[in-house]
């Protein structure tokens, strides 16, 4: 790693593009018709997957038991962020996020059947029923979770960038966090290391306005992304309701990471329509009118729909077909999850140690597990 002081780069990067023209920026104009439709399709698939998971959470299975336990943090309303960012991934780009992770998992290309099965706690789940909603992983798709502790994943994401640099690979890590995470010490330690060591990481703050039930005004002093300036990092802000703007803004910072090995922090304004988790009655910290304002006027799927219709990329009939397919896909995922078996009690102690899972290659001796 270079020990030289990092280049002065603490400036805010302002976009020169008028908000209405993001679809015309090179990174978006170069998309094929099918790629543009895919952005829309992926957002719709996330929305329908999560709506179906919510119904499963609130419903009962055939035996009268719960389908989904624990927490369910829904991404509904924020889809353009994960889809826009992950659509820019090359083969050496990596993603890590917090516990509101369903959108990122679908955006990196994970199959929705094992995702739903994970929610149901089934052995066919993406983490074999051992992680649950907050802990999706797909290293084969460069997706490193799915982490439950606010801000705890940010040093890990910085480590992914460190590994890329050490291995001489031209890529970038995107380390996603919510607006609440910016007040965690681990995030600031990671900012410092990333800038000090010139690591190719983009810290993405998905600012949905609330850290659980505490508004930004009640939790955070100053502008969130601007804190990056204190660590000599470029930073920017962007409208997260427009998938094309997300792509255009993120493309700049990802390029900085890949080409110049410089970190940055991007704050993406977004909004969640549902509570912090399904357990949140959502009646103490914001108004219904506020939620409706976003839902009616800034919904990322509706924004993209209007853009694509206006540009003649697709027709209302095709949009409806995409929606119908997404609903069917979510239903198939739920049926798959419902029909799948649970892990057995014997499975509890699998996947704990690499060595106990590879007994023929074990080099250590002695007891690994205790009664």
């Amino acid at each position: 790693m270079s020990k030289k002081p990092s280049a002065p780069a603490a400036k805010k990067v302002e976009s020169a593009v008028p908000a209405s023209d993001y679809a015309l920026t090179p990174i978006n104009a170069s998309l094929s018709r099918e790629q543009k439709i895919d952005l829309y399709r992926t957002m719709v698939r996330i929305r329908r997957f999560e709506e179906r998971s919510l119904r499963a959470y609130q419903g009962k299975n055939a035996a009268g038991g719960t389908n989904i336990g624990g927490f369910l943090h829904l991404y509904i309303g924020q889809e353009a962020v994960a889809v826009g960012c992950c659509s820019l991934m090359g083969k050496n780009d990596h993603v890590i996020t917090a516990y509101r992770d369903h959108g990122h998992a679908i955006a990196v290309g994970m199959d929705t059947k094992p995702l739903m099965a994970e929610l149901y706690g089934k052995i066919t789940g993406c983490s074999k029923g051992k992680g649950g909603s907050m802990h999706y992983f797909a290293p084969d798709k460069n997706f490193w979770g799915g982490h439950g502790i606010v801000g705890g994943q940010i040093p890990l994401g910085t480590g992914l960038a460190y590994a890329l640099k050490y291995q001489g690979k031209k890529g970038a890590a995107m380390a996603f966090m919510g607006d609440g995470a910016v007040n965690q010490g681990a995030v600031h330690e990671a900012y410092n290391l990333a800038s000090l060591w010139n690591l190719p990481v983009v810290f993405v703050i998905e600012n949905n306005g609330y850290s659980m039930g505490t508004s930004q005004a009640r939790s955070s002093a100053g502008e969130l992304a601007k804190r990056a300036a204190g660590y000599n990092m470029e930073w920017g802000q962007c409208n997260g309701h427009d998938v094309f703007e997300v792509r255009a803004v993120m493309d700049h910072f990802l390029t900085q990471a890949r080409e110049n090995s410089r970190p940055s922090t991007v704050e993406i304004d977004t909004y969640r329509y549902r509570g912090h988790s399904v357990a949140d009655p959502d009646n103490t910290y914001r108004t219904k009118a506020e939620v409706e304002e976003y839902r009616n006027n800034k919904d990322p799927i509706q924004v993209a729909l209007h853009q694509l219709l206006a540009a003649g990329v697709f027709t209302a009939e095709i949009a409806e077909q995409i929606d119908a397919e997404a609903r069917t896909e979510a239903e198939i995922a739920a049926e798959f999850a419902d029909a799948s078996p649970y892990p057995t009690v014997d499975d509890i102690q699998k996947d704990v140690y690499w060595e106990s899972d590879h007994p023929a290659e074990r080099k250590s001796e002695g007891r690994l597990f205790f009664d």
Partner: protein
Amino acid sequence: MPQITYREAIRHALAEELTRDPNVVVMGEEVAQFNGAYKVTEGLLAKFGPDRIVDTPISEAGFIGLGVGASMLGIRPVMELMFWSFYSVAFDQILNNAANVRYMSGGQINCPIVIRGPANGGTNVGATHSHTPENVLANHPGVKVVVPSTAYDAKGLLKSAIRDNDPVFFLENTILYGDKGEVPEAEYVIPLGKADVKRTGTDLTIVTYGRCVIHSLKAAETLEKEHDISVEVVDLRTIRPLDIDTVLASVRKTHRVLIVEEQKPFASVGTQLAYMIQREAFDDLDGPIHRLATVDAPAIYSPPVETEQLPNPGRVVKAVLAALA
């Protein structure tokens, strides 16, 4: 066979593994330019360069977490904590992320990280710098915990730890860093999870690890000379995985047990050992299992009194006599 210090033995293990595997990176506070706060990594920067021997800011949560993330992509970071006592500011990274990521991903992700550094009292640095967290660490399935007592063991065990595909926490001892022992020049490794009978005896088994092995061996000499008592000393070397079979074999020979540990008594490593010994060798015991631990209070500063708060040869002698009374 050449005599080298415990510190040099660890350094040699690091150097050999750095040479063997280009994915090994040594990282921590003052490990490079300063040559190590305790000089364990002295000379490694000059030999391996700044890409392999990396100074970090005082930022344990940040750099340990960075190491965990890098290990997921195949780097083998060997992270130095200047004191294991500082684990508390990186607890989430060590025991949520490193310990759990394999499990929570359904076995898809490995975390081949080593975190090493000293964990001991006895140097008059007060309660914040004198923690011995091996029991806390070993309470987390998914991790391995090593506490070597000699130069020979430290080298062979660290080499195994670095090659291990699971997270390994390696707890050294500042007071042992200068102790010399015989270490062969030829390469060797010691498997994790293998105890070592450091002294054979017939009247009582001391089960111990770390610096308490040294105390116990001194006490055993005194007991033999002055009391004609023959003590067997079993050095666990690794806490998890645990070589309970070697412990039980010794108990079946001597029928008396004293556990000696530099731990606070409540829910210590010795607590687990006592449970397992009574459960698996109850009929072989001729008396209750005894234990000598740290006097149950935060580490006192006062130099002569701290010596008495910790296990020491004199306290071990008394504890053995009490166990055999």
